């Protein structure tokens, strides 16, 4: 791997864009040699932290007696809020509502109150249990189901979207339906829990190795907590063992605690949460209560729709504002609403503060849209797929009028019609629909269900300043390339894709491009790797850096060999200058000898986008990614147990940078989305304790939960409508909502027990319990109707 002899006669470089490459770290993953934060050699004398968590959901701290903790073996120190040298706050939204350690009051069961610093992790954990904390308990709000979206406390300003006159359109519509859907949250369950290792330096300096998706944000908050300028803090991450949004803001608490303790004791400090602490004390995907009213005609055309998306923010704002916004941005999914009114309500509860999770509210918005489609379909007695197709946005190139989103952005690149048509064909939807009806008619205990659901996902941060990226590229005198950018690697193959872009620019083999750890010291002020934007933004920034260097090499070659610049052409591993070919390495060497700068910082900002939140108008997304999924299930009507018989997915990643990586994202996203909507259930007891805080009680999908038949394909014909990086499209989040196909297939199977006459209104997660209870409810309603 270290030696590479470039082929100077190659027709193409190895590892350029649009080629299928294996993950750059795959060899290290399988050998156990990939280094995660907890695997790094600890500096001598490293201390370890254990957390003391609140035992009540809401209360004031009457007394906190830590004497037994301090006296425990190995304990060096116990930190409380008083030990925070700067501001005791890590709110990412600037709301000042996220203390590092609780001060005066606790607002959820599991909130960190103190941090034990000890010689070993074991000692720290044991000591943390010896505290005597007394509370004056206050009434606690644990769930949002009974809250009032107008009167009850909200953590931040809600968003309203409005186009046309929804109320009038619904009132005038031939038919109307009102309903509510309860939609559960989801734990990230990244396999590597939250972890940070802080190493103190001289003066104010500290380096924090942190499993974070947002190194700049972590840097910013650590400096804020320490009361030092950002330049004193370096945050570095080579890779995470999974992120999924759970390390966008939730990594900051461990980083802050490690840094505080490290500076105080002048020793390296590691904070690694165990699984129970991680699931108890860090935020999750928001659960939503979705209230909807839809007006439609007898054909199933939606005329007007009104939504209230109430989300469980938990005790602080964190990212709940933008998550609620993105739910509204996707309450249309792929459908045109002639008149629409939608509002969010980020409700305060005494639970952990919910946060980013792959899709960031978008999937919740889409689930709401699909419920409405189902309601309409059952009301008019048609297959849901017909209603879906009837209400799609106009397709690309159609000079129609059905193309305005609820936020007044024109949908210009809609390819959902073609995707759905192709999937319907390849999945043999119509034939299987008939077969399933015949099967169900003859099967008393097992019922089958089928559904095909579309996805349209908006790509861009709605926070405009996040839509920028930086990169740093060095070409060394031997022609090898050091690549760095602001994005982080959490398994999605981002570093590989960006390296492919750099290799392509220089026309050198991928092996010549060195992937390096993300660090705030090389690329500053970066956006978190989130919103599916990693490759779009950082690929462009790295391309910019590489192009600057390539231009200098071109100018140098043109000057030195006295040819026009258009006669300097980068070929695979070599450069043609006039009539001669020089190896890339030789040209670089010559440039170095002639004192040409071979390093460049690149930058990119997404064009076109703008967003006025107060008005609810703007061009919020640079483009949309599309896809569709078709799922079939079998359900046991005696127990509610089910299996996924088959799933077919057709997904659009534009001109994919790396299809092998993208297929992995689609497969993994679907399974994660399916888990969210089926077996992953978060359950709080009456005291506000999360009782599903480990894999023994919280059930993410296993290999044996995969569809028995699983066909995943990428559209081989699509390309990004906008000039994205090599016309590829983002792929991190858009496949996750394909899991909706499973929820709707379950719903379809449930509906069969009442002759498909009653909308099952199956809530999520659709555990076997919810499925069975829906079956019972439908049977009772059907019996009553007769």
């Amino acid at each position, binding site marked *: *791997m270290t030696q590479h002899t470039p082929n100077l006669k190659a027709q193409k470089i190895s590892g350029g864009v649009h080629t299928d490459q*294996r*993950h750059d770290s*795959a*060899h290290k*993953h*399988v*050998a*156990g040699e*990939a280094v*995660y934060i*907890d695997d790094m*050699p600890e500096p001598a004398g490293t201390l370890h932290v254990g957390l003391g968590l609140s035992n009540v959901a809401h209360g004031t701290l009457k007394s906190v007696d830590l004497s037994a903790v301090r006296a425990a073996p190995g304990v060096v120190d116990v930190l409380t809020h008083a030990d925070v040298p700067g501001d005791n706050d890590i709110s990412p939204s600037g709301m000042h509502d996220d203390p590092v350690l609780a001060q005066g009051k606790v607002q959820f069961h599991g909130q960190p109150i103190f941090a034990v610093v000890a010689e070993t992790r074991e000692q720290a*954990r*044991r000591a943390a*249990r010896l505290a005597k904390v007394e509370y004056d308990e206050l009434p606690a709000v644990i769930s949002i189901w009974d809250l009032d979206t107008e009167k009850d406390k909200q953590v931040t300003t809600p968003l309203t979207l409005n186009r046309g006159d929804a109320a009038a359109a619904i009132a005038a519509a031939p038919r109307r339906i009102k309903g509510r859907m309860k939609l559960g949250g989801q734990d990230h369950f*990244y*396999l*590597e829990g939250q972890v940070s290792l802080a190493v103190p330096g001289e003066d104010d300096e500290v380096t924090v190795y942190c499993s974070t998706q947002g190194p700049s944000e972590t840097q910013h908050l650590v400096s804020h907590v320490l009361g030092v300028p950002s330049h004193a803090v370096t945050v570095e991450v080579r*890779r*995470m*063992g999974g992120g*999924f949004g759970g390390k966008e803001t939730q990594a900051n608490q461990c980083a802050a605690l490690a840094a505080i303790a490290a500076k105080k004791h002048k020793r390296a400090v590691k904070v690694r949460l165990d*699984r129970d602490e991680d699931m108890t004390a860090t935020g999750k995907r928001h659960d939503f209560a979705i209230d909807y009213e839809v007006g439609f005609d007898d054909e199933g055309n939606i005329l007007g729709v009104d939504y209230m998306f109430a989300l469980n923010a938990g005790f602080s704002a964190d990212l709940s504002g933008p998550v609620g916004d993105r739910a509204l941005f996707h309450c249309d999914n792929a459908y045109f609403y002639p008149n629409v009114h939608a509002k969010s309500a980020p409700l305060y509860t005494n639970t952990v503060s919910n946060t980013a999770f792959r899709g960031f509210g978008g999937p919740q918005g889409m689930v709401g849209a699909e419920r409405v489609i189902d309601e309409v379909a059952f009301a008019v007695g048609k297959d849901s797929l017909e209603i879906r197709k009837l209400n799609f946005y106009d397709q690309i190139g159609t000079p129609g009028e059905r193309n305005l989103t609820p936020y007044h952005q024109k949908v210009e690149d809609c390819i959902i019609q073609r995707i759905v048509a192709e999937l319907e064909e390849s999945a043999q939807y119509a034939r299987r629909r008939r077969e399933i009806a015949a099967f169900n008619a003859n*099967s008393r205990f*097992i019922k089958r269900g089928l559904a095909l659901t579309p996805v349209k996902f908006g790509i861009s941060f709605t926070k405009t300043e996040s839509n920028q990226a930086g990169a740093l590229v060095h070409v060394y005198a031997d022609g090898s390339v050091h690549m760095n950018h602001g994005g982080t690697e*959490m*398994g999605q193959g981002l570093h590989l894709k960006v390296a492919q872009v750099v290799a392509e620019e220089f026309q050198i083999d991928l092996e010549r491009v060195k992937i390096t750890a993300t660090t705030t010291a090389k690329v500053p002020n970066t956006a978190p790797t989130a919103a599916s934007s990693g490759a779009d933004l950082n690929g462009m920034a790295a391309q910019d850096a590489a192009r600057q260097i390539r231009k200098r090499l071109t100018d140098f070659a043109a000057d030195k060999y006295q040819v026009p610049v258009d006669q300097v052409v980068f070929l695979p591993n070599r450069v043609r200058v006039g009539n001669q070919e020089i190896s890339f390495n030789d040209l670089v060497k010559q440039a170095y000898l002639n004192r040409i700068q071979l390093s460049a910082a690149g930058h990119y900002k997404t064009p076109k986008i703008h967003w006025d939140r107060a008005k609810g108008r703007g061009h919020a997304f640079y483009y949309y990614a599309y896809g569709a999924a078709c799922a079939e299930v079998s359900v046991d009507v*005696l*127990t*509610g*147990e*089910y*299996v996924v018989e088959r799933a077919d997915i057709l997904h659009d990643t534009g001109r994919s940078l790396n299809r092998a990586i993208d297929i*992995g994202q689609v*497969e*993994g996203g679907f*399974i994660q989305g399916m888990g969210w909507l089926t*077996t992953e*259930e978060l359950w709080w*007891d009456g005291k506000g304790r999360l*009782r*599903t805080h*480990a*894999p*023994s*009680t919280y059930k*993410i*999908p*296993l*290999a*044996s*939960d*995969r569809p*028995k038949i*699983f066909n*995943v394909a990428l559209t081989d014909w699509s390309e990004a409508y906008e000039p994205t990086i090599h016309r590829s499209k983002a792929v991190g989040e858009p496949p996750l909502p394909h899991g909706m196909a499973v929820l709707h297939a379950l719903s379809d199977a449930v509906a069969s027990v009442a002759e498909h006459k009653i909308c099952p209104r199956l809530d999520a997660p659709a555990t*076997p*319990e919810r499925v*069975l209870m829906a079956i019972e409810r439908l049977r009772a309603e059907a019996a009553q109707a007769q």
Partner: protein
Amino acid sequence: MATIKTRNHIRFILNGEDVTLGNVAPDATLLDYLRLQRTLRGTKEGCAEGDCGACTVLVGRLSGGKLVYESVNACIRFMGSLDGCHVVTVEHLGTSNGKLHPVQQAMVDFHGSQCGFCTPGFVMSLYGLWMASPEPSDALIEKALQGNLCRCTGYEAIMRAARAISDYGKVAKDPLLVERKAITARLEAFKDGTRVEVGEGKDRFVIPANVDDLAAVLEAEPTATVVAGSTDVGLWVTKHMRNISPAVFIANIDGLHSLSEDKGVISIGAGVTYTEAFETLSKRIPALGPLIDRIGGQQVRNMGTIGGNIANGSPIGDTPPPLIALGATLTLRKGKTRRTISLQDFFIAYGKQDRAPGEFVEAVHVPVPDKGEHFAVHKITKRRDEDITATLGAFWLKLAKDGTVDQVRIAYGGMAATPKRASAVEAALVGQPWTEATVEAAMARYTDDYTPLTDMRATSEYRALAAKNLLLRFYMETTGTKAPLQVSRYEAA
């Protein structure tokens, strides 16, 4: 007792190296030893409760003189239970600079890793599978991976890799199999018939030399923590930080691994793991096969024992209800004294069993149903595999010649504070014609037998409803209908 020799250290092989350890705590886990003492950090901690598989390693042990390698969870495996074993970690396979092992190369080529954190665990589980079955079916692969969570890939790529491993190399050439004889000899040399006593005071554990020695040890120290597979006791340590000293490790006592059948009764020694019991039980009592396959993941089944599942007295243990329905009995031993009781009488109340201080479960005896007797067991969970029971019903039925119910035993887990018979339901069935009408009438009697709880696994309403519906499923099964009666991952062959 005086004749038993003792030694004050454990001995095992770690990858290639013989290790002798005298300074080891009773609650020291293999995972901490690997990561903290040996800086072998390819093995990861994902959950510290045996549910995610990121810490999977292989443990080789002599079973009836034969060396078998099994995947286990290092996070809940105590060091004391490794005496006489061969521990194989991911570092013993290929390296990224050198040649990768076939399992690893297949995982690379088929894109089986994304974030890579779970990957070493998957590699080790697949390695264990591949050694035992080089050309596994999808069903076997899924079974081997029930104890491995991946949050990135959606598993499809890992499945593709698993199917292709043999394209990358031959099992016969695998180093662990090539060196089998030499390793066996080294492990044999560790077996010196001694009792192992390590540590002192509150930090002490014992590995008895044999079953008689176990009886003597427990009689002398009735408050000792008996540790078999540590799939439960492991969590007492990692999750609750309970002190388990003095611990008595019984997993490697040969005499507790006996599995025999006499006059239609299968006797299972208390140290027999689920994996060891699987072949016999699934052949002789076929309904138990699919149940065992749904207890924990493969790693847990390789460690956990049926004896432990009974002895810990959990109301949600999966084996007591079917064994009660089958009419199983239990041999309890204290010192030299043995007594046999019916299994259902063992469970007195929540957390309370009919076991005297110093007494231990030595074996369970399971009558094999005769031809003409019906037996079934059905487990209901949120997720099909590797999940803890919400409700589990076991049914044993003998019909009279006239088609009425002669005898019936129905027992449930997850419905009460102990595994419990459904006596009111049974009473409603006995003497009645075995018809759907009778079953419907009996279903109404469940409320007399059970008042289940609501918790994170299920509400009381669901438990009650699903539990009684299982009786209807059982009835339909006895009618010989060909229609499918439950959803299944793989159609019956």
